[in-house]
């Protein structure tokens, strides 16, 4: 696991994962929308001992800048062992309901960009004959909720996408969907923290263990699997009334 390609490399979860992998010989190709922030992440990984950390800024919603960045990454590094997609935001449900432009921008960044990048990478991985693809979903994708169903919809889109991509790429390449519960990161800075919140470092450990086990879908921390199993079997009529 030495050559790592990341979309949304400034994400707290992606950073925690990369820091733990920043050993001699590790090469990172960091993509995101903000070049100055990407530089900060790259310098951190270099200080920790990585062999290389290159950054590429991608213009939001511009496929050709994404394509150029991915292809250049493969050209410069030769290959990647892992593609990690951590880009995404948690928009205000209320604002999304009233602003159609916001809704499409959100879907572009949190679902479309990721699928586009994964498809570019899939071609390369097929050619390589290996390489793991890890996409960050969320427990919110398991069931629609009154308070965040736009966010949940993007995450469940990623789940269905992963299911199909997995059929295409396995067994050579595992396609792993990681579904964290709430994590204390800038994305949730405005939320009141409670005991259900996990840390980016714990999610990073769950991602690594999923890769080693070549798991298909993992919850992070693991106990969300049981919580969501219960929530998923709740009858629709009951859920409709919960509105939580």
């Amino acid at each position, binding site marked *: 696991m030495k050559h790592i390609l990341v979309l949304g490399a400034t994400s707290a979860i992606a950073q925690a994962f990369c820091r733990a992998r920043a050993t001699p010989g590790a090469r990172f190709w960091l993509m995101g929308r903000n070049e100055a922030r990407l530089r900060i992440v790259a*310098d951190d990984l270099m200080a920790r001992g990585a062999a290389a950390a290159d950054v590429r800024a991608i213009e939001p919603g511009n496929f050709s800048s994404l394509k150029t960045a991915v292809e250049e990454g493969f050209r410069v590094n030769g290959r990647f062992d892992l593609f990690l997609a951590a880009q995404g935001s948690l928009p205000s449900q209320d604002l999304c309901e009233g602003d159609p432009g916001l809704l499409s921008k959100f879907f572009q960044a949190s679902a479309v960009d990721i699928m586009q990048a994964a498809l570019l990478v899939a071609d390369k991985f097929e050619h390589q004959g290996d390489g793991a693809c890890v996409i960050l979903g969320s427990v919110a994708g398991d069931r629609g909720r009154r308070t965040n169903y736009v966010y949940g919809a993007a995450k469940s889109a990623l789940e269905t996408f992963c299911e199909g991509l997995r059929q295409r790429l396995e067994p050579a390449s595992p396609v792993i969907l990681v579904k964290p519960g709430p994590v204390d990161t800038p994305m949730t800075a405005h939320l009141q923290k409670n005991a259900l919140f996990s840390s980016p470092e714990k999610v990073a450990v769950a991602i690594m263990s999923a890769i080693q086990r070549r798991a298909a879908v993992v919850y992070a921390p693991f106990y969300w699997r049981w919580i969501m199993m219960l929530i998923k079997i709740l009858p629709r009529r009951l859920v409709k009334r919960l509105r939580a």
Partner: protein
Amino acid sequence: MIGHEKTFYSWGGKVTSGSHGEELVWRGDPLPAGARPRLAHGLGRSYGDSCLLNDGCIVETQRMDHLIAFDSATGVVRCEAGCTLAKLLEFCVPRGWFIPVSPGTKFVTMGGCVANDVHGKNHHRAGSFGCFVTRFGLRRSDGAERECSPENHADLFRATIGGLGLTGIILWVEVRLKPIRSPFIRQRTEPLRGINAFFEVARREEAHFDYSVAWLDATHAGTPRGVFIAGNHAEENHAPHFPRSSPRCSVPLTLPDFVLGAWSIGLMNAGYYAANALHWGESRVGYDGFFYPLDAVAHWNRAYGKKGLAQYQFVVPMEFGPEALRETLGKAQAARQASFLTVVKLFGAIPSPGLLSFPRPGVTVCFDFPHLGASTERLLDDLDRTVFACGGALYPAKDARMSRESFERSFPRHREFKELIDPACSSNFARRTGLTA
């Protein structure tokens, strides 16, 4: 910047009112706009109110924790101000380097260590944290980032070390780490009986140990007793050491006030003494256990109940040391106020670059009282009289009560400092002591 209404706490249980929290995640991001005063906040490990600001904007720095550069030949590391000592240790110890000066907890930020110019068990040999800071980046309310060092913006360099967060927001810090050969400490403990014993043992042993401190049982009737603890980094490498990245257990909620009453504190002091008495002499311990014994229990401050705890730390010149220690211990006993941890240490003569640096040659004593309200306040006022009669000073990191007069007596260079305060910065401490409006 991500902002929202939020209440902030200090380690001694002080809280803010009307404060707004803004997270500074990236060092290139602009500071919060608007006319409200602001203050940087690390992990809130200061006991009093120097890390708090009512009706203002508190800039939270703990997510801003990137390394910027590390030179493995010289051990010079540059990292962002929100990086904690815990995270830095995880990085540097496996590479053979250690934090040059460390307070009694590793859950503090680099910015907090600079702003309080913290001291550790090696003050007699090394000086304070500020002595190892080579430069730092400071963002003031004019928006510009300044790189401060002894050569560059030297006035702001001196004012920010020990500057209580009032000179601007520290974005990053560069320090010289200390080379080590092993993550272990060769520790020596020795029983102490009486005040004079402390001074004798400390003076005799200091020449042989990088680190030294003494704990006194202030609840013991009769001759004060205690434990002298000293150590050096072990020379050779032994079995791998796995430091704690998070506490082993936690006090989940604030305990009722009677739990840490005079009685139970006396009992615990006796227990601590007895535990040490089992193995006087030399032993090899991990650095976590030697430097950060309290970190094993998260939120241990909650054990002090709703009113929290009142720390009281002072320094007096060496010649008044025995007298001041005897008198303050006596006053605490007479007032029937039990101090859980009473720590005594000799400060050395290495000067800090900081204008408001607390450490100075002499003896420092730190009491740890449960806050019992008016009776505790009265006792602390009485202790002040001893401290100032001896020409001493109080430590702002542990303080929530010192008056403007006490502050100005403790820090004779306060006028020079005032000129360099960032007009947008303030804190509850600064308002009380007349540093800011």
